[in-house]
């Protein structure tokens, strides 16, 4: 230190100047935002562009390079497959049904969980259980509950004389939930709703608890009943939050393939096929990367438009 008195303060000066420069809002903002942006560009944006390239090429698992562009050929080929049309129908149908059920059930669950009552902690623990386990394990639990031979639900229905000889749905003793087209789709919707309800409720509950208590109390004093308060005050105030909940859960449901891949494997035939699983089967199992990418990409424009409209609505409802 004492041997070189001149450089000490000066290097401090340089450091201080760097520190000062780094502390300007724009520089600090870039430094703090940078790593996340770089990560998202490297692992989301670049693969996304590559995937679009794949969908326009004739790449396969054997030759995965995007060397030969074939334009929209993959898309036209894909839409002519029967399995694709079924997958498209099912993806849209299942997502819509799940959303409708979730909206109703999450609003109902919210009204229950917004109040204080004895044993609330225990109820919260039981309630969040479906969401606490990985999706694939939730699917396995239901695979056992909906087993073709040993489903306990079948057993209950037999005891109630709804199934089995003489039953309304008899004479068989089994419904084969996952082995029939519409029962299969119904089962997928039910299991998705079962799994997503805790998350959807948390989102709606967050909005519900932001409604000022005085407003609700005032309405009660004015003599409004439960349903009047629900439909006139709570639901309109919740509208923006419900839109977020719908968007969020819809995107999770429409992109998820593990439920179908474990429960019905898209069958019987392709009657319960969905787009993500069909893309996976085509792209990876059959090795046609280009068509797989085209299938996975197919809904993107639709989702983009739907999401933009939803976001605008969420903002506007709030402003109005």
């Amino acid at each position, binding site marked *: 230190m004492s041997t070189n008195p001149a450089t000490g303060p000066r290097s401090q000066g340089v450091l201080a100047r760097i520190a000062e420069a780094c502390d300007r809002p724009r520089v600090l903002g870039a430094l703090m935002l940078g790593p996340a942006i770089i990560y998202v560009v490297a692992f989301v944006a670049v693969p996304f562009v590559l995937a679009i390239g794949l969908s326009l090429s004739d790449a396969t698992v054997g030759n995965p390079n995007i060397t030969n562009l074939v334009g929209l050929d993959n898309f036209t080929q894909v839409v002519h497959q029967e399995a694709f049309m079924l997958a498209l129908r099912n993806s849209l149908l299942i997502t819509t049904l799940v959303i409708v059920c979730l909206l109703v059930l999450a609003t109902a669950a919210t009204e229950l969980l917004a109040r204080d009552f004895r044993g609330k902690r225990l109820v919260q623990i039981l309630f969040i*259980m479906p969401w606490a386990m*990985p999706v694939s394990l939730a699917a396995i639990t239901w695979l056992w509950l909906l087993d073709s*031979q040993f489903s306990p639900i079948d057993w209950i229905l037999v005891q109630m004389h709804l199934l089995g000889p003489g039953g309304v749905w008899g004479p068989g003793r089994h419904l084969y939930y996952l082995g029939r087209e519409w029962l299969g789709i119904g089962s997928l919707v039910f299991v998705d709703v079962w799994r997503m309800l805790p998350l959807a409720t948390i989102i709606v509950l967050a909005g519900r608890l932001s409604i000022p208590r005085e407003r609700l109390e005032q309405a009660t004093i004015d003599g409004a009943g439960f349903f009047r308060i629900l439909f006139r005050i709570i639901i309109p105030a919740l509208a923006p939050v419900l839109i977020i909940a719908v968007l969020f859960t819809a995107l999770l449901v429409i992109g998820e393939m593990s439920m179908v891949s474990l429960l019905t494997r898209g069958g019987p035939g392709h009657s319960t096929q969905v787009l993500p699983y069909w893309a996976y089967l085509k792209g990876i199992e059959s090795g046609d990367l280009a068509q797989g990418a085209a299938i996975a990409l197919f809904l993107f424009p639709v989702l983009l438009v739907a999401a933009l409209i939803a976001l605008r609505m969420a903002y506007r409802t709030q402003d109005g």
Partner: protein
Amino acid sequence: MKRSIRKTSFYAAVVLLALFSALPVAYAVLTIFKTQADLFTSGANPFIYGQPPTIDHLIFLFTQTQYTTFLWNSFVIGLFVVAITVVLAVPAAYALARLTGSWGERSGMAIFLVYLIPPTLLFIPLYQIVVDLDLANTIWALVVVLPTITIPFCTWLLLGFFRSVPRELDEAALLDGCSRFAAFRKVVLPQALPGIGACIVFAFSLSLSNYIYSVTFVTESAARNLSAGVPTELIRGDVYFWPALMAATSIVAIPLAIAYGLLFDYLVRGFQNAEAAATGG
């Protein structure tokens, strides 16, 4: 009289809700201790034990399968994903909330657009990247890739928390001679701790849950996690080891449900700030 009817119906609805969520898991727990013969007795009451309960299937799960490896892998992957997410998302959210001006403030919901890109589309090119990085068939493949799901979500969640901290707080710190970064670290960050807590829970849960990346990027069973390992190892062709599968599920579901359930109010608060900020309230 009317009051007690309302109270009863309220509790009935609460019980119904709890049963709806928990009954499948209760049935899974019941299945764990059934003998194979008891399980496959046609027409027998499935809700009682026809034969004395056994713990053979639990012993099988822990000694004859790689279940403990899957548990450990999932745990390690979860820890790393949470760490990466927090390190990248916390500063990013603060920067968007305070430093990047008007476009940063409007970016709240735009982050959601990342979720429009389905994982089934990304995993083909991502697999190539994972292979190029020489990470295929290791748990690091998932550590590198899973933050694509957690970072956008957690940034959105934290953005709300940082916006809910009054600007006057940082301004006062700046007037006191703090640097901007010090103001963030010492004044704003402590206010956002509940948000970071909610982020940790969500990031962990999302990393645990992911199926498609786990199945496609790791085929070596020693490196598999719960989400991919249990369905592939305990289902061999058409042979299902039901009690072991149910044990594998319950052992994960019950402790996590207790943890998340106790944090329930906290998770709700996490969304409360984010929604208020996102919808401009």
